[in-house]
Structure formats: C-alpha cells, structure tokens
C-alpha cells in the first residue's frame, strides 16, 4: 500500500484512499467530476451528503477538508421511503 494512503471507514467498510481531501474522495466514490463547491461539473446536482465521525460536512467545506486516518465516513442519498 502507498505510504500516503489513509485507511478510513466508508458506510461501514474499511477503505484505503489517496484522495487529498473530502472533495476528491466523494468524487472518487460517486464517480462524478466535482467542482470546488462540491457540485457536479456538468451542472446537475449530486444528491448526496457526507458525515465524518457523526458530523455533517457541508459540501462547500469538502474542498480542503483533509481526511484523517481512521475517520468514520457516512455517504448517504435519497432512497424510497414513506
């Protein structure tokens, strides 16, 4: 494993990442090209939210938000529900 890789937990599963910040990590997980505001570069809307260690991180703060070894990340979206 690359020495710069960090191990974090994403939706309950351990994963190693080289992403420099949360913005790049979310882009990686969703396979979307994101601008620094956390929205897709194609003008559509992403429709996901992120919590790190049980605190919601607004998309405007993803850029520059460095991941820490052992972070517990939840990535959620809308699913069918009453």
């Amino acid at each position, binding site marked *: 494993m690359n020495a710069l890789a960090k191990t974090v937990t994403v939706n309950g599963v351990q994963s190693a990442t080289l992403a420099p910040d949360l913005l790049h990590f979310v882009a990686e997980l*969703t396979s979307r090209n994101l601008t620094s505001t956390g929205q897709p570069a194609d003008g559509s809307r992403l429709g996901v*939210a992120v919590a790190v260690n049980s605190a919601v991180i607004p998309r405007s703060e993803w850029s520059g938000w460095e991941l820490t070894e052992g972070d517990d990340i939840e990535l959620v979206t809308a*699913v069918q*529900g*009453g």
Partner: protein
Amino acid sequence: MDLSTTLSADALVIDGIPLNSRLIMGTGGAPSMEGLSEALAASGTELTTVAMRRYTPETGASLFQLLHSQGIRILPNTAGCFTAREAVLTAELGREALETNWVKLEVIADEHTLLPDSLELVEAAETLVSRGFTVFAYTNDDPVLALRLEQLGAAVVMPLGAPIGTGLGILNPHNIELIVSRAGVPIVLDAGIGTASDAAFAMELGCDAVLLATAVTRAQDPVAMAAAFRHAVLAGRLASRAGRIPKREHALASSPHDGRADL
C-alpha cells in the same frame, strides 16, 4: 365563485410554497423505479417523501435525479430513527444532500408498532426548528401533542390515521377533527390510509392534505390507485368546503308532497 376558480385558488401553501395537489406521496414500497415514476405522475403529487440511506454505486442518486426530472419537490424523512439525536443528524444529511430545509420528522418508538416516540419527537422538533428547518412533524393522533408541536414551531403537524402500513384507515376521527379545529398550521393526515375513501374522509374531517405511500405502492395496480387517491383527495376537499347537510334522525323527502296524482 365558479368551480374552476374554487379549485385553482385552493393551493396548500407551506413556507410560502404553493402546492396545487393536496396529496403528498411517499415513495416507499414501490417494486421498481419505473412503476414508482408512473404512480407519482398518476397521483398528481407535487411533494414526495424519501428516506436517507447509505449511497451505493449501483443505485447512485437515481431517486433524487428521477424526482428532480419529474419536477416533484422532495421531503426527506427521518424514518428509522429511534432517538432525537439520530433524527436531527438524519435531517441534516437530508438538507445537505437534497438541498431543502423541509423535513418530515419521524422518531419511532419501536419496530413492532412503528408509533412515534412523543418525547424524542418533541426534543428533535425543538432542535430542528432552532436550526432553521421547516418541520413536518409526524405524530400520534393526540390533540394535546399536536398543539404543542405547533407551539414549538412545527410548520406542519401530521397526525397518523392508523399505524404505518396497516391500511386501517382513520381509527379516531374525533381526534383528527379536534386537532384540525384547534390548529393554526396545516394538518396532514399521515399513515394508515388503505383506500380512496379513507383519504376523502380525512379531507372531509378538515385535514389540509393527506400523505400516503403503501396504499399506492403496494396496491395491485399502483397507477390506478394513485389516480383514485388524486380524485379522492380532491373530492374530500371540495366536500369539506361545500357544506354538507346536517345529519337527521328521520327521513326527509326530496320530492314535493304537493301535486301528487290521486291514485
């Protein structure tokens, strides 16, 4: 006022947003995304609930994109939360993911009854109101609690007709009527609806709207049932405003007594 004016001037306004349909659809229980899309269209709904769950690469954010493309406003819920803490965090995730301050606040006591936990509900509602959310509070059909939720800032109070998914209809119409009669915010009958007449009844009791999911998504023909509810909600709304006749102990002929032939 003619009928078309009556209908067009009858939007339900929440937080300054007019909703021309008084049927709020839940998306839960639909076997396929295509079927859900068709049922939503047939229902005429302009507001629909979703749950917040872990992202998977397989489904992505497809429901969000579907609702967005159908022009339907999204009401994220806090389904599956048992504590105020979980519900507040889930509401914040919904706000961030779906870019709306609106939240259907649902704090459940246990898996068996799925009934709201009133204490956790009140605590979560207070917190969410203070954080700028437009709270749609899902509650027991308790007139006292309904008023308390309004007083602490809920934008909409949503008493249940019967437990979630039971289709038992409105078990305590007297309570619903009492809640409506004292409310200064919109009252939405949520949960327990089984068929079209239940929705019409809710509206006749004076509710401002009806929220349902299972009754459509698990019907044998969801599209037909969605259309049935669309008409039922409209019928109930019109009836509630049209002034029903008083109930009487004895019959009252509608044909004239005078002028009968001597047979």
